């Protein structure tokens, strides 16, 4: 492929800025940004499916929570170390995504949205039902001394930021490589015109399943990392709200763009942060943003930029 220099340069620059921010940000924003980077990884995973493959899921909280609980439960109840629990959480999310994908992909469009919503809701309710082990809505805290990876304590703010940045960078680079690869081109082809992709000889069902599994694994990684970095595991992260939020972040930043999820997550997190200082009804902002985006900017912030000025943006 030609013209790789500009996109590669831009994304390297973004990572460099994020690294530089580590040294200059005041404590409060440093902490918020670490959270944003972790959640933006969740959004990147969601974007793989929604932005690039055109599959609108309303149940991605399930995969985030699968990573979160896949890490948290064995650490809490079986005394696993983080080194073992982290890959386990990711694998668990990928496995769940395979199962949900195999069933949900038999449907399309609106039915697909409802099926994913229902599976996620069943997962959320299951967490509440086994409240004895999961502590339900209240959740549980992972002990500080257990939250270390290869001898580095992730409870420490500096290590936490760098770990979140590494997580995000890996997910972003993986996305970039995937979408510029032949397989990524096929995913976009499926989004644009599924029947045509099929008639070019592509096994559309297999590619879609691939997208769901990759997306589930990435969201699971974000969930597992969240548990490790912030030390809290709770059923809220499996609720509908956490299926809607990644959709909102990606829509806001720009579906089918590599940097959109980061922009959307950062923007919305700060907005909600500001809003929750003013009122309990801070989700009003999320609702208004969803309606306004649907009405006026369906391509999102970066999508509009790409449309108007920078067609080369991946």
């Amino acid at each position, binding site marked *: 492929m030609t013209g790789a220099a500009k996109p590669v340069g831009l994304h390297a620059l973004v990572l460099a800025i994020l690294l530089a921010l580590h040294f200059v940000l005041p404590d409060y924003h440093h902490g918020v940004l670490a959270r944003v980077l972790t959640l933006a990884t969740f959004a990147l995973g969601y974007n793989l499916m929604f932005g690039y493959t055109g599959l609108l899921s309303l149940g991605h909280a399930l995969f985030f929570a699968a990573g979160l609980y896949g890490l948290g439960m064995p650490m809490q109840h079986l005394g696993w170390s983080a080194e073992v629990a982290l890959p386990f959480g990711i694998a668990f999310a990928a496995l769940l995504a395979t199962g949900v994908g195999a069933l949900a992909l038999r449907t399309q469009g609106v039915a697909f949205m409802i099926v994913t919503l229902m599976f996620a809701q069943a997962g959320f309710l299951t967490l509440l039902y086994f409240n004895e082990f999961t502590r339900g809505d209240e959740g549980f805290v992972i002990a500080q001394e257990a939250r270390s990876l290869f001898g580095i304590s992730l409870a420490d703010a500096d290590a936490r930021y760098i770990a979140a940045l590494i997580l995000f960078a890996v997910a972003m680079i993986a996305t970039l490589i995937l979408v510029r690869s032949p397989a990524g*081109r096929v995913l*976009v*082809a499926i989004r644009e015109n599924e029947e045509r992709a099929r008639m070019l*000889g592509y096994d559309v069902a297999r590619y879609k399943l691939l997208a769901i599994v990759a997306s589930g694994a990435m969201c699971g990684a974000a969930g597992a990392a969240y548990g490790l970095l912030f030390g809290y595991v709770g059923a809220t992260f499996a609720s509908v709200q956490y299926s809607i939020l990644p959709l909102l972040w990606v829509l806001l930043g720009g579906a089918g763009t590599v940097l959109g999820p980061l922009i959307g997550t950062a923007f919305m997190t700060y907005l909600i942060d500001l809003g929750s200082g003013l009122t309990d009804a801070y989700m009003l902002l999320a609702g208004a943003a969803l309606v306004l985006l649907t009405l006026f900017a369906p391509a999102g912030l970066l999508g509009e930029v790409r449309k108007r000025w920078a067609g080369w943006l991946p």
Partner: protein
Amino acid sequence: MTVAASGPLLETEGLTRRFGGLTAVDHVDFQLFPGEIRALIGPNGAGKTTFVGLLSGRIPPSEGRVRFGGEDVTRLPAHARMARGMAYTFQITSVFANLSLFDNVALAVQRRLARGEGLEAETMAALDRVGLAGRARQTAGDLSYGHQRLLEIAMGLAQRPRLLILDEPTQGLSDGEIEGFKALVRDVAAEATVLLIEHNMDVVMSLATRITVLDMGARLAEGDPAAIHADAAVQRAYLGG
């Protein structure tokens, strides 16, 4: 040496498709040999599009069998048939409107390339063949209708198919464009067998080496262009006599 080399490339036996009470394709036996340019003609509603839908796997048959290259592909889904060397261009242009011409054709090329080597060269070659190489970075949706049809054909060629199915390729083209198209098909026929569904009898008569006529879902006649031209039954079917 193999059966496939000497026998038909594509063969159907008793191929039938019913929609509710309507039989759109009715026990059609059909053979297509390597190197042919076969035209499939018939009045509106004769079942032509349903028939190629059955061949390409877009529509499952109610009865009968389809063999491609000597292999029974009746149970294979469309994408698996395409992967075995069929290519299908849509009656209503169906390019990826939001992608560049390059990406459109690259999608057709990349499936057969193991490691993606030569993707760029092959893609550009296919675009060049239909005269669109200069527009490789344009968005397909911005092309004129005639150019979209050409892009569609480039995508078919880029798959290097053994069988290229063209569903009404000249519909909506100007006379000048049709002349170019005819030259292109003759050129393609050196490498691939062509099955052409076409309304324009001019195109059919000048391109086809053999013609099959469908009427009411059944095979009404088959022969070389001169024989079909003279066939009384075909005249009746078209004139409704």
